[in-house]
């Protein structure tokens, strides 16, 4: 007889639920402005509407160059303009030995890419790195957030997953650079998938 093991039936929904959390978090408005506007004064622009946030997300459109947020690691189309880009995807499904296979850990990676010439923005009257700023806003909004589909909270926590951290090194070495942030959440099997 097959032992009861988790199938993580809400796991595919988690990246969407992370986005949904960001879209509805009043404290994340600056994150959206830094992602949409490629200008130095992006934070002085008006807040984005829900539709404007949605319009940044590419899900099944093939003209990928017109979008800024992707739920996959690879973006095939050439990006002709310098703009901030965010990719959200799972890099590892780990395990938690103490729970006998009934829980697991999902490591989610947030790739923040931006053109080198738009890499600095004004924050608190100070020029700061756009990647640092977006990373800060991501952590502000998501670290400790209760994300539907996960058990517990999305965390930037080395004890939950050793992959948690922030790593510089994205980009193409010529026009784009970026940073990747890894956060983790417990995965489980849920009766209600939330929709």
């Amino acid at each position, binding site marked *: 007889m097959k032992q009861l093991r988790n199938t993580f039936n809400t796991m595919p929904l988690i990246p*969407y639920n992370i*986005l*949904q959390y960001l*879209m*509805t978090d009043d404290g994340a408005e600056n994150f959206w402005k830094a992602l949409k506007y490629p200008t130095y004064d992006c934070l002085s622009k008006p807040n984005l509407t*829900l*539709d404007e946030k*949605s319009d940044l*997300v590419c*899900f099944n*459109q*093939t*003209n*990928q*160059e017109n979008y800024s947020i992707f739920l996959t690691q690879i973006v095939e*189309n*050439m990006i*002709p303009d310098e703009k901030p880009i965010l990719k959200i995807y799972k890099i590892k499904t780990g395990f938690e030995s103490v729970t006998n296979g009934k829980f697991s850990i999902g490591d989610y990676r947030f790739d923040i890419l931006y053109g080198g010439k738009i890499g600095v923005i004004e924050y608190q009257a100070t020029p700061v790195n756009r990647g640092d700023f977006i990373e800060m806003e991501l952590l502000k909004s998501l670290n400790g957030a209760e994300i539907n589909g996960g058990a517990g909270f999305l965390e930037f926590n080395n004890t939950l997953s050793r992959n948690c951290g922030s790593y510089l090194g994205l980009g193409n070495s010529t026009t784009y650079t970026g940073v990747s942030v890894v956060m983790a959440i417990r995965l489980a099997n849920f009766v209600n998938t*939330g*929709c």
Partner: protein
Amino acid sequence: MSMMDDYMTILGTSYQTPNEYFRGLSQAYLTSQWDNTTLLETVKEETQRGSFEFSDIDVWKDGIIDFTTNALKDEKNYRKLMFENCNHEVDRGRFYYFDDNYWLVYAPTTPIELYSDISVRRCNNIAKWIDPDTNVIHELPCILEYDDSSSKERIDKDITTPNNSVILILQGNNDTIQFAQNKRFIFNGRPFMISGYNNYMQDDYVTKDTPLLFFDIYLDEILPTDDMINGIANRYEYNYQVDILESPIENINGFSGQLTANVLLNGKNTNKTVTWSANSNATIDVNGNYTLNGTVGSVATLTATYGSSTDSVSINIVSSIVNNREIVVTPNTTTLRQGRSVTFTASLYSNGVVQSDVITATVGGADSNNNYTWVSLGGNQFTLTNNLRSVSPLVITFTSGTTTKVMNIVLGAML
């Protein structure tokens, strides 16, 4: 004033410069010999570059032998056309049509030469594309260069995919000048995507026109939205649907009413406007106001069109009518994204005339505690808010007396 100018003034209009004199001799000779050749032929000439409208013109058609040919480079793909009028001007990128083929001018006429002639190259394929804003399919004869390159497949440890690249030559016009990276085409069942392009070879300093465009196109993967049969890339990515909201069945000659139509893109309402047309049994204006003018027994067909999408209603013209009632709800929403609201207006029509009857609505199919909020505003207006996406569609039934209208609405995700 120079002595030469003085001399010309004295001679008056009868004077010709040597240039004009020799050109006149050439023109006279050509005119006298124009029919005395085996090269004479009538071809079709594009009236203006980009118009794709053609008119007949006589030419001397000849081959071109001053380039190296090989098995790929076919001499039959190149022709030289000479015109009787030595002052006939033809710019680069203009189309000609003869021998069942379109041809593109790559060497235009030059005023330096005594005679007016051009070199053309045969278009060996057709570039097709769909305009995502207008839903109109365009096509233009084009040239694919002989040599393909990068034929080595893209090999990686995880997957191997095909590879290839070729140069696409297109007439420069108002549409093609917009083409940029990532635009895709399908040629003979193979999808290609623009990688790089040359749209900067301006013809002159004044107009800054770029009459010929050169694109590096790379083999791309076949997508589920590609129309591989008709060779139109991404065709099914833009699913436009025209929906006439009213459903009149019959009415009398002389009746006037109004139709409304929505244009939906991938199931979502747009603000795009349809064009209206009618058969001979009715007239209709740009706002959908129609009048029936057919005889009893005839059928008036009224059509709303957007790009290549249409919707029609057929109204039987009768001598007298029974009471046809229907409920029309605007906007005709099929999907509502999470976090958004929509306000519906329901109207009862009797034989095409709006009534003031009260309309009620019942909602089911999803969880009212979690998924949505439904508010009756009065005046037959209702507001629906999607609070949480639902796998079960919402079913809304509007009722007035015995007349009902059912709408199914998907409570979609936030994106």
